């Protein structure tokens, strides 16, 4: 029914005493997510929204048996927060924080790989398995339980796509926002592997953007091994080279990272490329029928 997280996932909210952490912890609880603990150094012993707060991740895990976390910690401390969660043995860590220094993420990436942690983000909306659980900041009501997997580098653009799918009568198995930074925990390729192995996911929508070559790598994998229909969209076809388009990762440098290269790689791999965003939901519906 889903990848990475489901209704049994027990979640710690890191930074739950901050305004963002608290706001989204409440939305997650409303959605049905099992938020079993909060964590903020120096605030241990308190309760927020009826959830116990701990000083350290290790304590929180020991006391509650949590196996995942969502991080709302400011950029200066976010890398440390991810590594603390990873060292405490959590299987899935979602980092929402935007603006983490790239060299911090270089260290984090190797650390979480060494510890076998699946890191989603940073600078991402998180993961939702509709009808079961959400670990993130996406609006719950636009989602619908179903069998289309969604993987994306963006936030609101993903909401747009999900909304179109839901309106077209297509529910989602899991939607993963992998994040808009140059270095992220899980890439398209990693998430596609999981969708490939998930019996309940029947098709995948992949939302890429300019910069890097993660879409090209994913396209190669789709061509070689992926067994289900994939739909692809790339944002930033009109972006000028050398300008960072909001996301730290969305920049065309020299001749690399252009939308044209990515679209060509996708077509080459047999991915259904969606040209106009407004028609994405309908295109997927028509093709899958």
């Amino acid at each position: 029914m889903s990848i990475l997280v489901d209704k049994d996932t027990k979640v710690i909210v890191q930074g739950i005493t901050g305004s963002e952490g608290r706001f989204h912890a409440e939305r997650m609880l409303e959605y049905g997510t099992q938020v079993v603990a909060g964590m903020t150094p120096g605030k241990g012993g308190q309760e927020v929204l009826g959830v116990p707060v701990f000083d350290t991740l290790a304590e929180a895990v020991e006391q509650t048996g949590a196996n995942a976390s969502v991080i709302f910690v400011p950029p200066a401390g976010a890398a440390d927060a991810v590594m603390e969660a990873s060292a405490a043995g959590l299987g899935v860590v979602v980092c929402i924080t935007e603006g983490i220094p790239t060299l911090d993420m270089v260290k984090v990436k190797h650390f979480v790989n060494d510890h076998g942690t699946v890191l989603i983000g940073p600078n991402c909306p998180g993961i939702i398995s509709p009808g079961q659980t959400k670990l993130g900041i996406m609006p719950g009501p636009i989602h619908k339980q179903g069998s289309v997997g969604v993987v994306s580098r963006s936030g609101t653009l993903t909401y747009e796509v999900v909304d179109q799918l839901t309106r077209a009568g297509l529910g989602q198995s899991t939607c993963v926002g992998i994040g808009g930074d140059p270095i992220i925990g899980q890439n398209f390729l990693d998430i596609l592997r999981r969708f490939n192995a998930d019996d309940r996911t029947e098709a995948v929508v992949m939302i890429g953007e300019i910069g890097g070559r993660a879409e090209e790598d994913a396209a190669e994998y789709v061509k070689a091994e992926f067994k289900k229909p994939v739909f692809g969209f790339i944002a930033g076809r009109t972006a000028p080279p050398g300008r960072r388009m909001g996301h730290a990762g969305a920049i065309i440098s020299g001749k690399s990272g252009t939308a044209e290269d990515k679209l060509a790689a996708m077509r080459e791999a047999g991915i259904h490329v969606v040209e106009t965003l407004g028609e994405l939901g309908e295109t997927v519906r028509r093709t899958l029928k």
Partner: protein
Amino acid sequence: MKIHEFQAKALFRRYGIPVPEGSAAQTAAEIKEMSRNLGGRVAVKAQIHAGGRGKGGGVKVVEGPDAAFGAAEAMLGRPLVTAQTGPLGQIVRQILVEAAHPFKHEYYVGLTIDRTLARPVFMVSPAGGMDIEEVAEKTPELIFKEAVDPRTGLLPFQCRNLAAKLGWGQALFRSGSSLFANLYRLFTELDASLLEINPLVLTEDDKLLALDAKINFDDNALFRHPELGELADPYEVDPLELEAGRYGLNYIRLDGNIGAMVNGAGLAMATMDLIKQAGAEPANFLDVGGGANAEMIANGFRIILSDERVKALLINIFGGILRCDVLAKGVIEAASKEKVSVPIIIRLEGTNVEEGRRLLDESGLTFAVAGDLKEAAEKVAALVRD
């Protein structure tokens, strides 16, 4: 963040990376005086952030103070057009003058982060002085890479590998190795995102010297290097972009005439594309961000419309954290303060959408509503036709 060559060279000096003696000034008279002190042949170099200055006429090697004065005067206060500046060029306000050393070989040395490997990677080539992307395309065998494991840092054998690839004999092993080690130290200590020396030269007297220097810093890490913020040059940034930045808005000016206000970078890019597909050209990229308040929206609205080329405005908001009613209040507030003479198309969806639409309906503002993105695109296209 980008900085000027003379600023990058000052940082190189601090990190023990050899650069020619020289300094920067804003008048030709000062350049003349500096040239006299340096003596002999000097390089007069226009300081703008864009690359390709040599081909654009922004670098002159001349003999004597009078020639340096002439070269500086020809550049100062005038736009320098290069392959990277766009057709209008960038006004030259500062000049770097340095001693010109005769050299026998040019190399390329770069250091950046490879996203896929998640490691800093040195890229070097014995084919220096040329456009490195062209070298990579035509003669990839002339480019050598060495990725650094962040858990160990740059290791001595890696420095020797790089030196060997550049054909440096034993005489240069030591100075070459320390050059790489110092570059890596600068990169990691100051959170650079790109270091480039093109060319690094071997002088006639067998010394390595960085004739050019380029450093980009990671914007996300500037909070821990407040001293670097002072190196920013406001003249290199579009005034509207500068103003938007002060309000926490992510605005980039483009060449078209359809303004766009969107929440979220991905959706903002997709909206630009949609305008283009409708047959028009976007005037800007504007991401008001996830948690924008009414004041930020109002400022964004005002900034877009203060661009005289804007003939229409498309507002595309998918409310998540940013609620549609907050967006509506911001737009109404901004529109009440100044005369809006261009058509506005609004597409709202998501959190509190009914309240947002109601506020807009009751505001007395004239605007067109688009039910979805397809309709928004059609309405933009209709404007273009009219």
